[in-house]
């Protein structure tokens, strides 16, 4: 891997985002809106019901951490679409860039975006809901890292689908997290889901992260299997979807799709 190439791809992305209001909104505005909206809904629910005060904490923390996954996934997929939309795809794939460098740059940008979202929303949660996410200590770093890994994996899966099916699959860049969210038990425990759906939920690394997060925020010890399962599943996801992306790219080269799509 050549870090000069990775740096160049990151600089390109930074230039693109800094000139595009809508992309800046993806980075700052929508995560803040998410937090404000769901934060206010939670406060209202608290007023009209007898829900435990911890509900606000759980929901606001879940919104923040979910945004880490969502934005990381979106970045990996949309940075590829940027090259399609600006008719730059052939300049990039016809250049001396290894797949690992291309994916590495997208993942590093996802890391940066995830960090920005985490810091921004944590600050807001502190001031609006007196929630200090950093009180979770090293566990926060573990949750962040695992959600980031899952975001990268989903991003690679979506980009692989776009390479396979082209424009009709582009909507997946925004839709996939919405499909995963209800099953991954982001805002409620896995036990709330119907019995048959619970094993499906537990096959997502995110479900283990959010189970762990709720335990950590309520001062309980985290069941060790959540930590191991999240980590092992993430490694499997990353290998599987990384391989899928590589196969899709090779297939796109064989079918001439890369050229057709990029022209």
């Amino acid at each position, binding site marked *: 891997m050549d870090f*000069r190439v990775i740096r160049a791809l990151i600089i390109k992305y930074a230039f693109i985002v800094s000139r595009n209001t809508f992309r800046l909104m993806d980075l700052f505005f929508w995560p803040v809106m998410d937090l404000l909206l769901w934060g206010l809904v939670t406060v209202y629910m608290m007023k009209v019901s007898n829900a435990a005060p911890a509900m606000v904490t759980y929901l606001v923390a879940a919104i923040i951490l979910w945004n880490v996954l969502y934005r990381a996934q979106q970045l990996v997929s949309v940075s590829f679409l940027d090259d399609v939309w600006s008719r730059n795809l052939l300049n990039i794939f016809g250049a001396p860039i290894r797949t690992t460098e291309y994916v590495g740059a997208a993942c590093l940008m996802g890391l940066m975006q995830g960090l920005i979202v985490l810091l921004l929303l944590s600050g807001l949660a502190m001031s609006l809901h007196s929630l200090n996410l950093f009180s979770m200590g090293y566990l926060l770093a573990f949750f962040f890292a695992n959600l980031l890994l899952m975001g990268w994996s989903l991003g690679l899966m979506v980009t692989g689908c776009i390479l396979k099916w082209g424009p009709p699959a582009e909507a997946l860049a925004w839709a996939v997290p919405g499909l995963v969210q209800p099953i991954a038990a982001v805002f409620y425990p896995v036990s709330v889901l119907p019995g048959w759906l619970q094993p499906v939920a537990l096959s997502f690394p995110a479900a283990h992260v959010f189970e762990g997060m709720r335990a950590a925020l309520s001062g309980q010890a985290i069941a060790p299997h959540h930590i191991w399962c999240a980590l092992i599943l993430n490694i499997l996801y990353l290998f599987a979807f990384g391989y899928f992306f590589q196969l899709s790219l090779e297939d796109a080269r064989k079918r001439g799709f890369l*050229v057709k799509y990029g*022209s």
Partner: protein
Amino acid sequence: MNNIVEVRALRKEFGKTVAIEDLDFDVKEGEILGFLGANGAGKTTTIFMLLGLITPTRGSISIMGREMKESRVDILKRMNFASAYQQLPYNLRVGENLLVFAEIYRVSNSKQKIDDLLEMFELAHLRKQLSGSLSSGEQTRLTLCKALLNDPDILLLDEPTASLDPDQADKVRKIIAARQREKGMTVINTSHNMIDVSELCHRIVFMQKGRVVANGSAQEILTQSGTATLEEAFISIARSNKTPAGVA
């Protein structure tokens, strides 16, 4: 002169369509090769296979003594390409685009190189302008700047003067010819512009239905096709569907 590009028994199928069939050709070091053919003849497909953007169904591409399928990245470090139909990201400034690609192609002394190329292609005054706001001719010249950033040993051009006015097209031809003389660069140039081909190219490969049907200097092609101009030779070969005797 050694062969810098060797293409052997190259075949490309897209589903049931055979786009390239048993294509064999060589390009010598420092040569400017013109790739001619009617639309759909397979020129651009061949160029994209040389760039590793399309994987051949069969056959081999050896560039600088290395197999494309095994050493794609190392080969591409010493190649570059420009197409009138490919742009650089529209929301980056001219200078920013060149800076990004200079990094990707591992160019040393990139600032000086960018300054020189912008000067050469008369784009220096547009350095801070967004690439998307350039005219199509300016964008074409910008992609040519990108293509020369790494002083490539092999330059692939896909209709490089397609959107240029005659004055700019002439300047671009002179720049490419001068770079070839100074640096010994090899150029493979697809074009429908016969002035490009006759002024620039040392040799012409004429493709039809995915095969080479003529291969020789402009003079040889004219003699064998019995025509007075390359334009007439092009029409004659494209319509006859035959190979001019002794040339192919």
